[in-house]
C-alpha cells in the first residue's frame, strides 16, 4: 500500500504515528549533539513535538484503542501512566538551563522512558488497533491527528485582500449566520 508523507484519504494513523516516533528519536539525538544556543533550540523543538504528539494520541488514538480490542483498557491505562510520568520529567527539564550539569543526565533518562513508551505503543497498542480497525477508520484517525497537530495558516483567507480589509469592523460573523439561515431555509423548504 502506498504510504503518503503528507496526508491523504488513505493515510494510516499507525504509519503516521510511527513516523512521529522516528522524528522524536531524531530530536533527542539533536539535543544531545548540539551545544549552547543550538541545544536550547533543539530542546524547544523536542518539547513542542512531544507535547503535540502525546496530546493527539490522547485525544484521538487512545480512546479508540480502548474500545478496539479485549484488554485495550489496560493497555491504554499503562500508556497514559507512562505519558504522565514523562510529562513530569519534561517539566523538570524545562525548568533547567541546558548548561545545567543535571540537564543531560535528566534528558537521557527522559529519552529512555519516551522511547520505551513509544516501543510499547507500537507493540502492544498500535499493532492490535491496526488488526482490529477498518482501513477507513485508520484513515479517519490519521486525518483527526493531523487536524489536532495543525499550525495556524501562513496565507490570509482568500476573501481578505489586504491588511486594511481585516480592520473593517464588520459583522462578518452575522453575514455567515445569515447565509447559513438562508441555506437552511432553502433546504427546509424542499422537505
Amino acid at each position, binding site marked *: 500500500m502506498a504510504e503518503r508523507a503528507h496526508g491523504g484519504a488513505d493515510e494510516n494513523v499507525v504509519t503516521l504515528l510511527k513516523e512521529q516516533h522516528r522524528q522524536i528519536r531524531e530530536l533527542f539525538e539533536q539535543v544531545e549533539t548540539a551545544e549552547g544556543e543550538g541545544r536550547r533550540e533543539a530542546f524547544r523543538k523536542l*518539547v*513542542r513535538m512531544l507535547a*503535540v504528539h502525546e496530546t493527539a494520541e490522547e485525544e484521538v488514538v487512545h480512546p479508540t484503542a480502548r474500545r478496539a480490542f479485549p484488554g485495550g483498557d489496560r493497555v491504554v491505562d499503562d500508556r497514559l501512566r507512562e505519558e504522565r510520568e514523562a510529562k513530569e520529567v519534561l517539566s523538570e527539564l524545562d525548568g533547567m538551563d541546558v548548561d545545567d550539569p543535571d540537564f543531560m543526565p535528566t534528558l537521557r533518562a527522559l529519552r529512555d522512558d519516551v522511547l520505551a513508551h513509544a516501543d510499547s505503543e507500537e507493540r502492544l497498542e498500535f499493532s492490535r488497533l491496526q488488526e482490529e480497525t477498518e482501513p477507513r477508520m485508520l484513515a479517519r484517525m490519521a486525518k483527526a491527528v493531523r487536524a489536532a497537530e495543525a499550525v495556524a495558516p501562513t496565507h490570509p483567507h482568500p476573501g481578505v485582500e489586504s*491588511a486594511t480589509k481585516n480592520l473593517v469592523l464588520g459583522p462578518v460573523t452575522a453575514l455567515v449566520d445569515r447565509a447559513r439561515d438562508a441555506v437552511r431555509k432553502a433546504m427546509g423548504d424542499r422537505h
Partner: protein
Amino acid sequence: MSADLSPLIAATAQWLTRAYAPGGGALDSVLAGAQARQAVTVAAWLRYPTVLDAGLVMVAGPGGSARLDWLAGADLGETDEADHAWRTWVDEAVASWAAALLSDRRLAAAAVAAVGDSDHALGLPVEFRRLTAPDAHDGRAAPLLRHPDLVASLAGLHRAELLGRLDAGHEHAA
C-alpha cells in the same frame, strides 16, 4: 464533501494563546496551546455543527481578529504580512465560546457532551481531556487563559449564543 475547519481552529487557538500568554518556558506555552486548541475545537464544532455550516464559514471567511485585537488592547501597529495572514482566519465567536469553556468546567463538560456525535468527530470517540480534566501542569501553564475574571469580557461577547446553543441541543436530545 469535506470541510476542514483546522485553519480556523489553529488560528483562533493561536490568538487565544498569545492574548493570554503563559509566562513560563517552552513546555508551558505548548501546554497552554493544547488547552486552547481543544477548547477552540469544541467551540468550532458547536458553532458550525454540520459539514454545510463549516463549508460556508470556510468560504465566507471567519472574519478575522480585528475586533478581538482591539478588545484585548493589543496595539498591533503596522503588522507585517505574515502576522496579518493567520489573523484573518480567527473566528471571534469561536474565540469567545472557547474562552467561556476554558473558564467554566461545567460548561466545558456540557459542550464536549454536545459535540460527541458531531459530524466533525468522524465517528471517532475523541476525548478532550486537556480541556475537561486539566492536570496540575495544565493549570500552571494557562493561569490567565483559565481565569474567569480575565476572560470575562471575551467570554461575555457571545455568551448568550453559546448558552442558547447548549440549551437547544439539550432540548433536542430530550
